[in-house]
């Protein structure tokens, strides 16, 4: 079911005034629906809340939860990053001025016809394969019919009984901090469809406007099996889908922009019960954290009701996640099963795929997150490291490129997860934005390992390269940073420092051996950090202890 938040306010009371406004200029169109009510109906619904404080409630429920099992399934809509929309030549740019990327076709003007963008098929096949699905070599488009102002044709072109891909699964590894563990979740189906426009509601709710920029943008809907059992599992499932679409390059997967939208279905049942409980749909989940928390909230709510003998008040409905209040509230009750009067889209020929086409796409697939994780694991990295490196496409590519240049795998991982990650987090940039090239990181690691520079100098060079770019060799040369490994030269510096600090030397020799650090620091300072620390300490110790 294609969904946007607004579109599912089927009962939204738009009150139209005689001044309903239409402007049509150069194909740009605004439709203004004036309304006099303020908000959606959910405001009037008393939410089912317990009287106990949140703290004590959580504790109670935690105990209760052990007797119940949650069943969670997710419908995900992924907006494809094709250059043009699914059935016309319009581009789609998130955030563009309303009704600026529209044409007669995506406006659904009389007489216009859809022509399928072949990239949509290519992306669907890619995702189907990446999710280990069986592809339908012969599928078709259908019309899903309903009335809403953001749906210009009065139907959505979608796929009904023969989706392009079915029966797959995703593998994922839960984060270590959440207890870790491998999971495999089933994928029921993947199908192609078009997005609808958006309704923009005025601040005071007195009117609504239709923006058709998004109308006709291609989507893939991914329906999971009801295999997830907790908020974190569901959030990680969604995160894995995001990784997969990003690795494939079929979508930017950005939840804030609505490029990845998840609707979750949650039900609970007492452990041991075979039948499913009544399922509740949750919408308005704009982040993985929201998915996690909304589901856990909903599980608690349902378990609480069930354990109080109020299982009947868990009804089939759509609930909205309120980020501010951290709770779900009733949005609308299901008014029976909607009849969308699906029938095959007569304006589009069937979608026929050949085995050769599918094979050519299969062979062109990039390494996917799960394959990367298994490979990194086999390389001997810890699961924490594996997840950090493999779960971000850009980080994984940087890591792979660094290792490919001969860098020690463990050291490369440490640098990336340590100083580089810290820099990226502080500056709020992507690893692609830094000026350090993977081959230079490899060079840096080699230079430290080979003794040309110290680790400390290495760190300095790293930040220099991240900020300004250039090569390791260039910076070393430019700043004269080659490590001093000549024992005679170091000895000279040690002698100087020792002779300049007689008081400390006396204390040292009186047994305050901790002062070695002080001497080491002074020598390092004198060498401008370039002295080989191992040599320095060896020589220093000899000198300090020599006259004993």
């Amino acid at each position, binding site marked *: 079911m294609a969904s946007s938040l607004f579109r599912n306010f089927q009962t939204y009371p738009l009150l139209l005034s005689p001044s309903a406004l239409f402007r049509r200029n150069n194909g740009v169109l605004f439709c203004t629906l004036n309304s006099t009510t303020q908000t959606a109906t959910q405001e009037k619904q008393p939410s089912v809340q317990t009287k106990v404080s949140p703290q004590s409630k959580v504790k109670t429920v935690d105990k209760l939860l052990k007797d119940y099992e949650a069943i969670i399934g997710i419908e995900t809509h992924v907006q494809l990053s094709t250059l043009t929309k699914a059935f016309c030549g319009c581009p789609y740019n998130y955030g563009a001025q309303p009704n600026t990327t529209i044409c007669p076709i995506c406006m659904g003007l009389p007489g216009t016809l859809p*022509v399928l963008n072949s990239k949509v098929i290519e992306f669907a096949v890619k995702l189907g394969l990446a999710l280990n699905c069986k592809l339908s070599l012969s599928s078709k488009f259908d019309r899903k019919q309903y009335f809403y102002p953001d749906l210009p044709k009065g139907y959505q072109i979608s796929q009904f009984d023969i989706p392009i891909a079915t029966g797959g699964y995703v593998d994922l590894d839960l984060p270590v901090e959440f207890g870790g563990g491998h999971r495999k979740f089933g994928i029921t189906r993947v199908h192609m469809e078009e997005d609808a426009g958006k309704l923009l509601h005025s601040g005071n709710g007195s009117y609504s406007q239709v923006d058709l920029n998004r109308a006709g943008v291609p989507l893939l809907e991914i329906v999971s099996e009801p295999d997830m059992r907790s908020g974190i599992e569901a959030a990680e499932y969604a995160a894995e889908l995001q990784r997969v679409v990003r690795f494939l390059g079929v979508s930017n997967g950005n939840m804030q922009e609505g490029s990845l939208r998840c609707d979750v279905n949650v039900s609970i049942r007492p452990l041991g019960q075979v039948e499913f409980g009544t399922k509740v749909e949750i919408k308005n989940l704009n982040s993985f954290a929201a998915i996690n928390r909304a589901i856990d909230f909903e599980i608690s709510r349902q378990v609480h009701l069930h354990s109080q003998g109020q299982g009947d008040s868990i009804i089939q409905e759509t609930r909205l996640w309120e980020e501010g209040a951290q709770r779900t509230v009733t949005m609308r009750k299901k008014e029976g099963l909607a009849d969308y009067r699906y*029938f095959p889209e007569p304006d589009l020929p069937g979608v026929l795929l050949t085995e050769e086409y599918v094979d050519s796409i299969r062979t062109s697939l990039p390494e996917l997150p799960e394959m990367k994780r298994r490979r990194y694991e086999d390389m001997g990295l810890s699961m924490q490291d594996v997840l950090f490196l493999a779960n971000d496409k850009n980080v994984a590519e940087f890591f792979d490129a660094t290792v490919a240049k001969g860098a020690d795998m463990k050291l490369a991982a440490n640098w990336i997860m340590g100083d580089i990650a810290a820099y990226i987090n502080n500056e709020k940039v992507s690893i692609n934005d830094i000026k350090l090239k993977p081959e230079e990181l490899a060079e840096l690691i080699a230079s430290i390992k080979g003794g040309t520079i110290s680790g400390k100098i290495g760190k300095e060079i790293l930040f220099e390269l991240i900020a300004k770019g250039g090569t390791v060799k260039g910076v070393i040369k430019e700043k004269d940073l080659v490590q001093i490994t000549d024992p005679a030269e170091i000895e000279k510096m040690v002698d100087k420092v020792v002779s300049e600090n007689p008081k400390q030397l006396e204390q040292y020799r009186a047994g305050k051996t901790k002062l070695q650090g002080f001497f080491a620091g002074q020598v390092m300072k004198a060498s401008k950090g370039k002295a080989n620390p191992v040599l320095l300490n060896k020589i220093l110790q000899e000198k300090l202890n020599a006259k004993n």
Partner: protein
Amino acid sequence: MVLSTAMKPSKYLFSCRRIHHHHHFPSVMTINANLSSSQSQILSIRESLLSRQVSATQIVESYLTRFSLTEPHLHSFLHFCDDSILKQQAQDLDDKIQKGEENLGPLAGVLVGVKDNICTADMPSTAGSRILQNYRPPFDASVVRRIRELGGIVCTVNPWDLSRVPGGSSGGSAAAVSARQCTVSLGSDTGGSVRQPASFCGVVGFKPTYGRVSRYGLMAYASSLDVIGCFSTSVVDSAILLHAISGHDPLDATSSKRGVPDFTSHISSINIMHSKPLKGLRVGLISETMKDGVDYGVKSAITAAASHLQDLGCIISEVSLPSFSLGLPAYYILASSESSSNLARYDGVRYGNQALSTELNALYEDSRAKGFGSEVKMRILMGAYALSAGYYDAYYKRAQQVRTLIRRSFSAALDNNDILISPAAPSAAYKIGEKKNDPLAMYAGDIMTVNVNLAGLPALVVPCGFVEGGPTVLPVGLQMIGAAFEEDKLLKVGHIFEQTLQGCSFVPPLVATALS
């Protein structure tokens, strides 16, 4: 005498007195092919222009004069373009000729009437419906664009009226051609709405193979059945117009990528003076179309047409299409289902008339209640019902299965025959309102044509005779059905049939009077 003012120009007075088709143009020499300009208004116009005996301006003026004489009786044009637009186009053409530019498009100076459910950017296209009142599309339909590129002068004709039966809905296009208000015209044919009015009006009507002509810009009624077709006063003109609008269109995914043969060259290569020009052509008369329920006069005219074909050398046999009678219910289920969906966009939100309302559902309901006529509402209800959960299998799906049967039975019949023939309608034109309260009788009038749409085949209707109609006689059309994409064969046969049919004129007397 007052002619009917509506889409079904019943009560035309026809006579068998032969009048000269082209007396308003100076007689011209034939051009290099065997085709004579006396067989074609389009060729006649072309020759007049090239020989500079007549200017485009004079041609347009003669149409405008005739239009002003006939339109008060016909009302076939909803939005006749501004005279000045037509005159300007004619002037531009004359300038071109004056400069000696010889590369005139094949439709140069030809007035093409376009049914107003086909989008034209410079004129309102309202599908004759209140819900689209004053709607002006921002683009030309692909067929309109092609006609303009080839030099044609486009004007809009009467409507696919959403408040009326689409069965004969291209009546305005047919009437306009019959009355010589335009040279040729375009209509749309979902279940026979080019062929039936052609038959009623005594003009040539051509429904091409589904996919031959782009539907882009045709306001969809039933997408899997809709085809844009031609009206003309001769088969040659339909061939020229069809050739102009045929071929793949990247904007219509259902348009065929097959090459388009030169339909006119197929015609011009025929020597109609040959005593048996159609020698050996196998013609199957569909037996189900000559049974009870078909007017006696129509049957006689078709039988006479068959023997005429036999005289031309054809081998006539009766062929049975056992699934023929299933076509009507299957057609009405499929057409209603698709139209219930295609008409959903007329919701008053983006274009057309919007009802004043205080609530969203009421906005939809009132806009559609006021915008659609009762016949359309009935079809939307039927279609929505047929597609509903629980009924889909019994209606829509079953109708699709019937469609497959029909397609197969046509295919088998066309394996054994070059073409099939039948009446274009079970009766001649009936009076407006005659079948208003009997929708089933009205729908039954489509029995001859709907099967062809279900099978997606090309069909040509040529006037073949008359039946008595009270104080007057009414024309009868012969339908010739060909295999998919074999339009050339139908045009060739139709041309010979037309050119050898003796002693009949299908020019309405009113028009003949206006012309003289």
